[in-house]
């Protein structure tokens, strides 16, 4: 155990976590040149396309240090976006130390701070690393000062590196061995293994990622999940070796690895749960994880109602791998059966949607995201509402409260004006600012969560040309003037398009929805009226004129195949539409309503 180091890399988004992980993997010869690709650990398609890390990943690196001994370094790569801090905190709970990576040109950013706090909460030893020193604009001296003054970390421990060129990475590996503590724990006491992640494999069942706190585990043993007493026989244990898994005779205290036990009942595995031996159980379960709070809610429906069962199993499997997702059954007149889901933010929502569509091949429609409101009724009772379908009868409501957050925005001084304006436009309140370092402003502002989930982050990014960073925490609930905005298509209410909005925004949102639908619904053989309404009154409308003709003029022997394919494409397009009344509404239209105005 003295030769094990479990650590994680934490940083603000784009400061180079995944790139540094790549270099370490290469230095430890862990994958062959042929297998290697950039951003090795970002193996989901969405991660590679968007260039971000969504899931944390583990890899076990054998490293021979300068003292001649071989160490087992367990590296856990983590995501940087605010939506995924839950993923980060779970990853950190399996480590003793962390590398805090800071971009030499950008300096300390909002997520640098947020992730540092998470690491401190978990009592991790921290090695500060300044990355990208190869950049022309790198200012390692200035950043070192920030690290010392703002973060209060020891300047002497700072490592300098370029994850891109590889310079300094070997020193980091040495520092890990030298400064990070080995795991504690007792290999001979009863088994305690913390499940920190899992995913489902169609052939082998659930693959559990776990950190052994005490005891050992090997194939053939009977194990038990502490939370539900489900028992299984271990089929295989092993270590993560980059692209592949490497079976081991056993795992013992301090190690991070995987367990296979032919687990086909998905709900048996819960991240945060403790695994122990059936015959020699531990006295009590490990602390597990803090419950996360979902802040954004939206319903997910399959486009084809036949896909409901598939969606149900897909969500269950996905949740295994994304513990922050919650769901319960929901139904809509327009869309049939689906699920009301809770997310950590809009990016999380998009990622879930994409993963469901890609990994499970189901086309989906999402409803307009909402936050959770508190409705106080005339009898003084309170109901929480996050779904427009459950909007109480307005005559019975005495007041409504909406959640506020406290936002922290870090940015260069010159963007202060535009960012203030953005906060005001979003009903921001009680703004304060100070200069944590020369030329940079830290702005705090209380904002309605509903305004932030919409498109605040994108707007902030563009207002500050990418230099603004943002973090938030839930703050309190405040009085709100909330209305339910309905959308009618040819007079028929499309319940899936209803949304809860503040009265001041209602007209603009209504018009936006009407315009997006007008753009995305293809013309049909009759005229289509689109209206936005609050209560009984129409607040916005658009129309789509009738299609007058749709016919292929020429079709002879040489054209048949090509024209048939065109028709087949048109047919596939129809399949991706939902019929409401007699109007066919494409999936794109539902999604367009969620998009912010540009």
């Amino acid at each position: 155990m003295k030769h094990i180091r479990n650590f994680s890399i934490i940083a603000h988004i784009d400061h180079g976590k995944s790139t540094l992980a790549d270099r370490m993997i290469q230095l430890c010869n862990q994958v062959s040149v042929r297998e290697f690709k950039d951003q090795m650990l970002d193996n989901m398609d969405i991660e590679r396309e968007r260039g971000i890390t969504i899931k944390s990943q583990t890899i076990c690196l054998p490293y021979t240090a300068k003292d001649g001994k071989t160490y087992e370094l367990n590296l856990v790569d983590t995501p940087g976006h605010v939506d995924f801090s839950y993923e980060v905190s779970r990853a950190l709970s399996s480590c003793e130390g962390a590398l805090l990576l800071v971009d030499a040109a950008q300096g300390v950013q909002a997520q640098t701070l947020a992730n540092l706090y998470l690491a401190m909460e978990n009592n991790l030893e921290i090695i500060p690393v300044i990355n990208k020193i190869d950049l022309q604009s790198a200012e390692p001296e200035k950043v070192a000062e920030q690290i010392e003054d703002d973060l209060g970390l020891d300047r002497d421990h700072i490592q300098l590196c370029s994850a891109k060129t590889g310079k300094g990475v070997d020193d980091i590996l040495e520092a890990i061995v030298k400064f990070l503590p080995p795991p504690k724990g007792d290999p001979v006491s009863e088994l305690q293994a913390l499940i920190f992640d899992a995913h489902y494999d169609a052939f082998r069942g659930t693959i559990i990622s776990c950190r052994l706190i005490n005891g050992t585990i090997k194939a053939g043993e009977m194990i038990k999940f502490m939370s539900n007493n489900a028992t299984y026989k271990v089929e295989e244990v092993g270590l993560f070796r980059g692209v592949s898994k490497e079976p081991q005779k056993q795992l013992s205290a301090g190690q991070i690895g995987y367990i296979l036990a032919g687990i086909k009942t998905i709900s048996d595995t819960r991240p945060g749960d403790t695994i122990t031996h059936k015959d020699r159980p531990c006295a009590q379960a490990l602390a597990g994880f803090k419950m996360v709070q979902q802040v954004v809610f939206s319903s997910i429906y399959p486009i084809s109602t036949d896909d409901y069962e598939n969606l149900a199993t897909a969500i269950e499997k996905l949740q295994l791998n994304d513990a922050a997702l919650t769901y319960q059954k929901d139904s809509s007149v327009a869309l049939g059966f689906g699920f009301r889901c809770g997310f950590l933010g809009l990016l999380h929502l998009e990622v879930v949607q994409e993963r469901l569509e890609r990994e499970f091949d189901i086309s989906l429609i999402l409803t307009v995201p909402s936050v959770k409101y508190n409705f106080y009724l005339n009898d003084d009772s309170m109901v929480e509402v996050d779904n427009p379908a459950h909007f109480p009868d307005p005559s019975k409501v005495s007041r409504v409260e909406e959640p506020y957050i406290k936002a922290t925005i870090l940015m260069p001084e010159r963007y202060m004006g535009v960012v203030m304006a953005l906060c005001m436009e979003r009903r921001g309140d009680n703004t304060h600012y100070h200069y944590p370092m020369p030329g940079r402003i830290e702005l705090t502002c209380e904002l309605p969560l509903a305004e932030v989930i919409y498109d605040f982050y994108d707007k902030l990014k563009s207002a500050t040309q990418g230099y603004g960073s943002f973090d938030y925490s839930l703050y309190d609930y405040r009085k709100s003037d909330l209305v339910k905005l309905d959308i009618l298509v040819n007079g028929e209410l499309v319940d899936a398009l209803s949304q809860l909005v503040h009265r001041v925004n209602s007209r603009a949102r209504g018009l936006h929805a009407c315009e997006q639908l007008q753009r995305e619904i293809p013309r049909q053989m009759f005229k289509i009226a689109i209206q936005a309404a609050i209560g009984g009154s129409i607040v916005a409308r658009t129309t789509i004129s009738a299609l007058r003709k749709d016919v292929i003029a020429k079709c002879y022997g040489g054209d048949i195949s090509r024209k048939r394919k065109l028709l087949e494409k048109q047919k596939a397009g129809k399949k991706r539409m939902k019929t409401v009344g007699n109007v066919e509404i494409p999936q794109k239209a539902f999604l367009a309503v969620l998009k912010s105005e540009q």
Partner: protein
Amino acid sequence: MSSLYIHIPFCLSKCPYCSFVSYPGMDKLHQRYVAALLLEAQWLHQNASVSPLSTLFLGGGTPTIFSGRELAQLVSCCQELFAFSDQAEISIEANPKTINPEKLSLLRHSGINRLSIGVQSFNDKELQLLGRPHSAEDAAEAVQLARAAGFDNISLDLMYGLPGQDHYSWQQTLEQAISIAPDHLSLYELTVEQGTPYHLQRNQGLLDLPDEENMVIMDQLTATLCRQAGLAQYEISNYARPGYECRHNINYWQNGPYLALGAGAVGCVDGRRRQKTCDPRHYCEQIESGQSVVQEEECLERTASFRETVVMGLRMTCGVSKIQLQQRYEMDLDDYYGDTLIHLVNQGLVEITASHLRLTARGRSFANQVMAELV
């Protein structure tokens, strides 16, 4: 019954809307190409058992870019190799600029009995915009010459929905066409095909196409004028005096079998549809060295073929025959489509008679919407 299509992939110039397999300025290749066609015909004769041909169609491109002698040779060669049924229909497409009395007479004597003239418009300004090398007068004269040469089955190709065209101009073109008393009209709404100069221009907003409102008026005008002239619509874009419907094309719409010769030509035998290489030079080389010219092959499974046959059949005014479908596929139309079909009937887009399924007049305007349900 059998059909044979021969493709001549050459033209005087390339029209900016054209997406056919046709190339201008390959004059040097023409002779070699005719020779290759004859070789391919021989190969076909040796390798396929061909029942007597009831239709032959020389299309393009511009077949009449070849000399009368070359064309006559091609036809007579086919007549030597393959049997023709009595009353076989032998058509050729012609461009007004590429015919003269001698050539027409040679063609007629070779056995060609149907002439399809690419007129496109009787408005010189429109013709110019279309990049056509002929004038309205050339077109009118071509018809006269054809009649004089003994052609008693003449079709004109016209296009509407042209850039800058309004419905008055279309009315004039159509009236002028009718005044020449053609036996058959093919009236095509301009389709802006991908990869053509028109496509580029349209995307840049440089193509002033009539709006949908005007197109609907033109459609109505077309229906009225043709009906008055005794030219009955028998397919989405085709009109004919009774008995002058093009049998070669009807075979396509019935999704029947057809043989093909030439670069870019598509043949369909035993449910296998094969497209030949489009490049005329490559075509010649392959044929000369005895190698295959097939570029793409498609073979639909039974139900897919059934659906294709339904969709193609709906192009015809009479629709698709339920009995023929039953005989050919052992599948029942109503059973197969079920509610989809009932829904289309209820929307007034199709009607089901005792023997056929066909588009209603309204359904003809929305043929794609119907076909996209049935394909």
